[in-house]
């Protein structure tokens, strides 16, 4: 077994000995305590994935496996003061319905804004466990049915299992039936990390950001997950977000990943969709040395619909891997995916999109597209769109393209006296913006467009 797993075992043993893990017995989340034990069995037996596994064919997490893992401590006042600048850059320029800020996975009340909307509960784990609102208590205990290991048959990654075993705090978002929330709910996770060293093995702090979200019948809302860390710091974030969309709810979900340039982010999002619910998801990956994201959507009842988009803009030696798995469990469900990527320098991107249409899922409709724009000679892209179809009355399609900018387009810009570097930036921005324009909410679009512009401008495009 490798170094990292040994360290995780020690960490878990120490936390148990000191009773430092959240006490869940007797609370509505009591089921998570049992899950914790099961999860430990999973990662301590299987270990971290290797490239021999099909799902990790193109992404090596050897750097994490070999690292010396230390548990990230809760920040003291001094640490918070040092992170003030990171907190500042994490801020999004929008009016929020609520914002929870976590540092190293711990809730920071003084940086957070609680909601003042009837029927909307945005709380830290401790507050959620104390809550005496019956709706909240019922929802938390019912989450077992959709996100307990029985529902997933242990199919999650070792990293998601690590989160379940070792999480210390969580962001809980609960919108009651018919609750309408117009402005975004922001969940910010700041990682402090440890100073990176030039010699292997790295010393890495581990954090376990967790989100539990439930949207009741006919509710509507926008959730933006905001992951960020300082450049130069080494850490691994194993985030795990569970979203339950009730009947006819409409939820937009953005996961914005801007980890530091030495950070590792290996996250999972699981979505369960009830009848006629609609998910509008966007996964944006701009930061981290290595980022891997698994998105699993289960369209569990007729009329459920998911738009699942992604955007990655990477450079230097960044590695980004997006895995999506959309399960059409029943008929009359719809999914639509568009993942776009801009690659510069020696960066590498992986896309693996899996669409699964069950035998009874007649009249399902699904499409998937992955477009990649390569700006440098040495960038690499591996894309694998998969279809597994067991029903005959369906429409399913996928496509993937890889290419560079059209020289004709560049020539046109130059003939208009725009220098090549600006022309490339403008074209790349136009290419990347498409996914943002697919968002239904103007507020969300306004919040994201400046980030895309900034990311594209940050590419030091070498013009040939």
């Amino acid at each position, binding site marked *: 077994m490798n170094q990292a797993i040994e360290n995780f075992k020690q960490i878990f043993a120490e936390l148990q000995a000191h009773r430092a893990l959240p006490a869940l017995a007797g609370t509505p989340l009591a089921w998570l305590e049992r899950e914790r034990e099961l999860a430990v069995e999973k990662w301590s037996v299987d270990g971290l994935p290797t490239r021999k596994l099909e799902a990790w064919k193109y992404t090596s997490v050897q750097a994490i496996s070999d690292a010396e893992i230390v548990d990230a401590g809760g920040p003291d006042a001094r640490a918070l003061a040092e992170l003030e600048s990171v907190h500042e850059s994490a801020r999004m320029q929008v009016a929020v319905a609520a914002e929870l800020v976590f540092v190293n996975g711990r809730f920071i009340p003084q940086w957070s804004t609680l909601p003042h909307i009837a029927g909307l509960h945005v709380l830290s784990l401790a507050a959620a466990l104390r809550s005496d609102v019956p709706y909240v208590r019922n929802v938390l205990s019912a989450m077992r049915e959709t996100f307990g290991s029985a529902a997933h048959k242990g199919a999650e990654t070792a990293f998601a299992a690590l989160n379940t075993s070792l999480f210390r705090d969580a962001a809980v978002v609960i919108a009651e039936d018919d609750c309408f929330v117009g402005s975004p709910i922001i969940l910010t996770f700041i990682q402090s990390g440890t100073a990176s060293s030039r010699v292997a093995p790295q010393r890495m702090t581990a954090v376990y950001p967790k989100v539990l979200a439930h949207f009741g019948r006919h509710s509507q809302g926008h959730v933006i997950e905001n992951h960020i860390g300082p450049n130069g710091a080494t850490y691994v974030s194993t985030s795990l977000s569970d979203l339950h969309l009730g009947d006819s709810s409409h939820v937009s979900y953005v996961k914005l990943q801007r980890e530091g340039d030495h950070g590792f982010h290996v996250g999972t999002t699981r979505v369960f969709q009830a009848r006629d619910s609609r998910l509008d998801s966007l996964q944006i990956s701009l930061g981290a040395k290595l980022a891997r994201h698994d998105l699993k959507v289960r369209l569990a009842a007729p009329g459920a619909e998911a738009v699942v988009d992604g955007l990655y803009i990477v450079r230097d030696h960044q590695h980004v891997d997006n895995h999506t798995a959309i399960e059409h469990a029943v008929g009359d469900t719809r999914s639509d995916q568009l993942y776009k990527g801009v690659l510069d320098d020696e960066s590498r991107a992986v896309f693996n999109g899996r669409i699964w249409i069950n*035998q009874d899922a007649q009249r399902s409709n699904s499409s998937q597209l992955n477009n990649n724009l390569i700006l440098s*000679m040495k960038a690499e892209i*591996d894309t694998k769109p*998969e*279809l597994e179809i067991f029903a*005959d009355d*369906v429409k399913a399609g996928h*496509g*993937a393209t890889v290419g560079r900018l059209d020289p004709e387009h560049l020539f046109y810009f130059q003939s208009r006296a725009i220098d090549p570097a600006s022309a490339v930036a403008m074209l790349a921005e136009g290419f990347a913006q498409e996914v943002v324009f697919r968002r239904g909410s103007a507020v969300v679009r306004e919040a994201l467009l400046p980030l895309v512009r900034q990311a594209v401008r940050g590419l030091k495009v070498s013009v040939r």
Partner: protein
Amino acid sequence: MEQKSSAAAVGGDYKYGFVTDIETDTVPKGLNEDIIRMISAKKNEPEWMLEYRLKAFRHWQTMEEPTWANVQYPKIDFQDIIYYSAPKKNAEGPKTLDELDPELLKTFERLGIPLSEQKRISGVAVDAVFDSVSVGTTHKDTLAKHGVIFCSISEAMHTHGDLVRKYLGSVVPISDNFYAALNAAVFTDGSFVYVPKGVTCPIDLSTYFRINASETGQFERTLVIADEGSFVNYLEGCTAPQRDENQLHAAVVELIALDHAEIKYSTVQNWYTGDKEGRGGIYNFVTKRGKCAGRESKISWTQVESGSAITWKYPSCVLLGEGSQGAFYSVALTHDYMQADTGTKMIHVGKNTKSTIISKGISTGHSKNSYRGQVKIMPSAEGARNYSQCDSMLVGDKSSANTYPYIEVKNSTAVLEHEASTSRISEDQLFYLQSRGLDTEQAISMLVQGFCKDVFKQLPLEFSVEAVKLIEMKLENSVG
């Protein structure tokens, strides 16, 4: 007439399901070094060939059966297979085709492959392989006039040993995969083609494979070499009797195209598929690969996969030469309990290399049909171009269609497009055709042919007609 009725009596739905009663010369069941030596001795092979086989066998023993394909079958007992079976011949052996056992000639006649001199009007030279050995090659004289070598690979080992030795295993090395290693150890026959510099092969070449004996496996090896500036059109067909047991077919095909040469390789695969309940049928585990070694060389694979209980086949192109081109056109039809995991690999190494992939999958009944393909652009492949299209059609709600394309790009100047779609036959189109007086079966057949048109038009005329008929016949039995 007589032919038809006997086929119906024995074969039922599968018209080639009959067994020829012929005396055979077989080796004992099982596989070990002695068996390999025995096969090699029977064929009177040169020493280097035996060495090659033993090396492959020793390597094979260290390998494990691949399990990544999306197919399920009971474990194969490799010791329960007869590795060599040949029709008995006189000590001398037939000098000409006319001296062949009349039973044999009749078999090929029933399969629609005329071997006897007077019947050779089709203008296609045929190498007929019966169980483990080649029984005859037609049109040898015409070909010899142009310097084209077309004979069984066992013969080539003696007459053109240097060429065989140089190219055998140069595209599919013995260590390539489990079944390729097994094939290298035990292959019994196959075809050998060499087209000399600047020659356009005057007639199409064809190999017809027939499994007859029971409990045997067929392991043939085909080697096609197109020298500079030459062109050859090569066709391949196969059938087997109807039996309850599963039989293993593990072939290796290697193509080599030198500068400006072009090879077109077409297959209509119609091995026995097993019965309605999925009993019996051929396991078709085949490695086919072409190497575009020269500048601007071209290799194209066209296949109609309509047979076998299980197909596991990925005809590939390694595009080494600058400006070389690879193509893959495929129709895979599965019915009843058939399982097909097929596709291609296009490995772009040279500059400005191009590849095209058109794959059409049709699944009916309880069958499983998967496309698995890889397009890999190596860092050296400046300006590479690939276009892939994979469409699946589902008929009935018990079948499945899967698509697993792997696209790996290590050079940014590459331009790639991949498209795939899955759908069922449109109700509107069916209704329209039926309103014009076609019955359901005819209408479906017409729509399926339209769906496959892009591939069928790549086949040589005779093959194209055969393919259309074959698909029609298969659909008749599987569309309820």
